[in-house]
């Protein structure tokens, strides 16, 4: 380092650290990971509301057996757009939102590895979403289901299908760019002293998610490129009339879209792994088991895709292979579930909104997981394929898993992001309505599926009418349940009680700074003095006390005896403790 550089360093203008963000900066191309995180979280929530309205329109149509609310073509478009929006514009980018906000803070970095790329990845999302929704206005919305299987997708309307493909290709690009950023940031930008086993579990979850997204998303892009040639240029890759094979599309599609299930759930496994130990005041049980099971899920997630195709005429031995690999995924997932339960066991549990949602997640996700194992069994799957049993299963994992996980994350990190506490009463009302609404809507669908009701139909046999009506009322409760959340967030953001640095007395690095954190996060790189989950120890008390002071990151009189050796592992980390 030259003398000049040292001088520059010492006289670095510090104005950025004193400045608060202006509201309009959140509407600009900003490279600050915290701005991008908030942009993601708010934008995706708006899309969640749009997708939710579509879901309620679908349920309203299904309240009665006849097609009497919307035209059947519109109904097809509604459920197609509902699924596409919820998957590609809500759950997947919401995970990216949390990752953007939290990863650099958790590893003590100033920002992500590629801030501009990061901003670009976000700014792809709103235009693609708007593009997708404008197809409704054009009168030719995609209506072949979110799976867009050919040959159906090739004959239902060229413009709508082309819009769908373009929109998914854009969102896939955004997801790949985001994943590159997360992976490089996690691998290369950890503060000194933060080895892999000192990482909070959310970081492990994002590592597994990003690797999976990087490997699987491009294959979907490949499939969609071929599909667009079929659609526009008249080739016949997936069109049997021209000698093509639609099953090849299904293979390519599910090679992405099954891993996508894990891309949608792993980040929230990470969220839950942060929320539960913090609010149970106990070290996490099985740190390494949870960390490595994320990687195991990633790997296994790549070799199970054909369980979506048991009725597509694939050979028997292939069915057997995919049945077995699918069932094996229950093992790493079970490891996580039991580790979380063991973490809570005997803890001083705080039943606040974040923890309630985390516990709701545990209970409901297990139901979805079990129906998943049922569906993995070939004989059972052939019986219920494309029935409401599948709809029930996927909503238990995606709503009961991912969405409850997102809400747990919202409530947990809201004080950090906004500097203010949420209203716990409204949070509890939100939780109660969500749990009641979701079980009313989706639990009876298992029965409907077993009785033989097909999914994706606007008209059905009158014998299913009573259960369907019940489900529809449940979906209205679900719609209402969002209102206390919206009111709570807006009200608390404006006038909530000040949160302080660390309202939950948490130990992960993002709580060791101000709320909201300063614009460039940190002045000097932090030195890790405690593992992320050493709750209950004497050292934890000291660190928590420190986190409430003015300069938690930069305080040089750290209470810890061992700040010297970067490679030293932290004996009190839960893997050993548990």
């Amino acid at each position, binding site marked *: *380092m030259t003398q000049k550089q*040292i001088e520059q*360093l*010492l006289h*670095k203008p*510090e104005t950025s*650290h*004193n400045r608060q963000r202006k509201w309009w900066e959140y509407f600009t191309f900003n490279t600050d990971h915290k701005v991008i995180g908030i942009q993601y979280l708010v934008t995706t929530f708006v899309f969640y509301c749009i997708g939710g309205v579509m879901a309620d329109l679908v349920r309203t149509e299904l309240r009665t057996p006849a097609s009497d609310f919307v035209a059947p073509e519109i109904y097809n478009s509604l459920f197609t757009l509902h699924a596409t929006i919820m998957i590609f514009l809500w759950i997947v980018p919401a995970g990216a939102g949390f990752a953007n906000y939290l990863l650099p803070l958790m590893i003590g970095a*100033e920002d992500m*590895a*590629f801030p501009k790329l990061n901003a670009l990845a976000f700014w792809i999302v709103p235009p693609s979403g708007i593009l997708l929704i404008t197809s409704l206005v054009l009168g030719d919305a995609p209506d072949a289901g979110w799976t867009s299987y050919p040959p159906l997708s090739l004959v239902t309307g060229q413009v709508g299908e082309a819009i769908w493909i373009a929109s998914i290709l854009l969102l896939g690009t955004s997801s*790949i760019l985001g*994943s*590159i*950023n997360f992976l*490089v940031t996690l*691998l290369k*930008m950890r*503060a*000194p002293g933060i080895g892999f086993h000192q990482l909070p579990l959310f970081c492990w979850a994002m590592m597994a998610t990003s690797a999976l997204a*990087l*490997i*699987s*998303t*491009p*294959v*979907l*892009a*490949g*499939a969609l*490129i*071929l599909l667009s*040639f079929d659609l526009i240029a*008249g*080739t*016949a*890759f997936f069109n049997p009339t*021209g*000698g*093509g*094979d639609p099953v*090849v599309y299904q293979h*390519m599609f599910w*090679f992405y879209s099954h891993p996508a299930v894990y891309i949608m759930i792993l980040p929230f496994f990470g969220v839950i792994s942060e929320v539960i130990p913090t609010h149970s005041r106990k070290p996490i049980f099985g740190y390494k088991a949870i960390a490595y099971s994320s990687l195991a899920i990633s790997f296994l997630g790549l070799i199970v895709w054909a369980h979506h195709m048991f009725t597509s005429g694939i050979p028997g031995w292939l069915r057997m292979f995919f049945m077995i690999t699918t069932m094996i995924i229950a093992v790493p997932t079970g490891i996580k579930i039991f580790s979380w339960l063991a973490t809570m066991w005997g803890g001083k549990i705080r039943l606040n909104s974040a923890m309630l949602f985390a516990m709701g997640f545990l209970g409901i996700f297990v139901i979805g997981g079990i129906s998943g194992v049922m569906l993995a069994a070939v004989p059972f799957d052939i019986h219920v394929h494309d029935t409401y049993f599948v709809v029930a299963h996927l909503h238990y994992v995606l709503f009961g898993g991912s969405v409850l996980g997102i809400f747990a994350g919202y409530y947990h990190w809201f004080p950090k992001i906004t500097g203010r506490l949420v209203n716990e009463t409204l949070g509890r009302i939100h939780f109660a309505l969500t749990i009641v609404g979701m079980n009313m809507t989706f639990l009876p669908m298992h029965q409907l599926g077993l009785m033989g009701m097909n999914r994706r139909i606007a008209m059905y046999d009158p014998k299913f009418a009573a259960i369907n009506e019940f489900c529809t009322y449940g979906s209205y409760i679900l719609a209402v349940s969002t209102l206390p959340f919206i009111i709570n967030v807006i009200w608390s953001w404006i006038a909530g009680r000040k949160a302080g640095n660390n309202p939950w007395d948490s130990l992960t690095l993002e709580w060791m*700074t*101000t709320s909201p954190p*300063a614009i460039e996060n*940190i002045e*000097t*790189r932090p*030195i890790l003095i405690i593992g992320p989950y050493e709750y209950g120890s004497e050292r934890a008390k000291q660190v928590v006390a420190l986190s409430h002071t*003015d*300069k938690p*990151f*930069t305080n*040089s*009189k750290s209470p810890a005896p061992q*700040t*010297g050796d*970067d490679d030293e592992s932290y004996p009190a980390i839960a893997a050993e403790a548990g």
Partner: protein
Amino acid sequence: MQSPAIDPAKTEQNHHHVATVEAQHAEHPDHRLFGLVVFLVAEGMIFLGMFGAYFAFRATLSEWPPAGTPELELLLPGINTIILISSSFVIHNADTAIKKNNVRGMQTWFAITAIMGIIFLCGQVYEYKHLEFGLTTNLFASAFYVLTGFHGLHVTIGVLAILAVLWRSRKPNHYSDQQHFGIEAAELYWHFVDVIWIVLFGILYLL
């Protein structure tokens, strides 16, 4: 958090102080090449997915290429392949040159690589014009055009990247033995495009 500058007295108490200052210096360490490698993994997966589809189509049809597909001429694509593979060695010389701070040498090798890339693309266009089947003739023809076309798009991007480096290298000291990410990135991308072509050539022409 809001102290006006690094307080030397304070950092001194910190026995991490050397590491801290170094971390500050390497505030924005260059992860771009690693990022590009990760990106190329994703790119490779698109091709892998398409190759997978190609083999699946091959497996479903009893005769491949389907009956009546004209034989592919091997001479021109063979020459093209040799040109592209040799260009990978040519571009590596540029890397060696810039590491010796030889900007002129780097420019020469990059220019030669760009010309070889353009010759490859012209050869490709010539082949397209003289083939006896079109995009929609049959499954093999469609796969042939989409795969080679998609690869050709990547060659085009590679050539543009090389030309961009050449354009930037007009400014003296833009690239040096210390600072030459653009050169390394263009080279890495070019090698990637080359490797994909070798696989593609094997699958489409030889198998």
